[in-house]
């Protein structure tokens, strides 16, 4: 997945990095197998509809994991990601396309703070109030 924006050696406060990706149709099954979270909200369309959703929804923590990948790929080392925080706002469905947009808001020594959001193809905000701290070294 191609990350847009400046690389880690060039980023300045106020600049954005972003990535887009499609959520695989079998995502919720694979995520449940790997994480052990078998909540039917993520597996059973009828159950999810009864809860007021359009169908089974993607695990919020899976969407959060997509966000970690943006930062760990960008930083080129997973342990440079020091902190990640998200608010789960709107549901995400298999087959949706998301864009993760992160804006560098602060730099203190070698730590850059990003604010970020995740939107689907309709502009619905799946994750809001995202915050990440990434070490430049």
């Amino acid at each position, binding site marked *: 997945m191609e990350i847009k924006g400046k690389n880690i050696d060039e980023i300045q406060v106020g600049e954005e990095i972003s990535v887009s*990706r499609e959520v*695989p149709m079998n*995502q919720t099954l*694979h*995520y449940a*197998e*790997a*994480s*052990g*979270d078998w909540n039917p909200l993520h597996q059973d369309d009828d159950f999810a509809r009864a809860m007021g959703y359009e169908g089974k929804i993607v695990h*919020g*923590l*899976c969407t*959060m*994991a*997509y966000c*970690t*990948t943006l930062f*760990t*790929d960008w930083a080129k080392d*997973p*342990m440079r*990601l*020091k*902190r*990640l*925080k*998200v*608010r*789960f706002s709107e549901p995400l469905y298999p087959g949706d396309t998301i864009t993760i947009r992160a804006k560098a808001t602060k730099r203190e020594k070698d730590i850059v703070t990003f604010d970020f959001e995740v939107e689907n193809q309709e502009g619905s905000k799946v994750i809001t*109030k995202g915050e990440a701290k990434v070490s430049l070294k």
Partner: protein
Amino acid sequence: MTNPRYKEKKFGPYKDEEAIEEDGTKKYAEAIGDLNPLYTDEEYAKKSRYGSIIAPPMYAVTYTLSSIMNCFTDSGMPEVVADFDFEISFENLVHGEQEFEFFKPIKAGDEISTEVRILNVYKKGNLNFVDFGTTSKNQRGELVTKGIMTTIFRS
């Protein structure tokens, strides 16, 4: 409204029954579509500064969620929630927010223990919020991750 005793109570530490396995961390990386060779390629990872395959950061959810699930059935929980004016159960929680801090990489063979605390209990309208704090250490007692899981329960 709420029992301040929750602030004093520590749940756990809960230790995972099995040590971390490479199959599990690889599977997690593949499930989230993150094919960073540090997570999936033994030869590549061996030559890296980590010396072996590491888990993707968000693998932390596996032991974090299981420890929070354990705390709901902990014998110390009824006393803590006795004065809450709403019911809590793992089945009815809505996951509102999640925060993680990452301190040390997780590798195969690690045995993770997680202590859970209730950090805050508060209301917004008819929704009740409970923040669970998790502190996870490896078998050497090194801090690996800290988390805050904000959960929401209806009145």
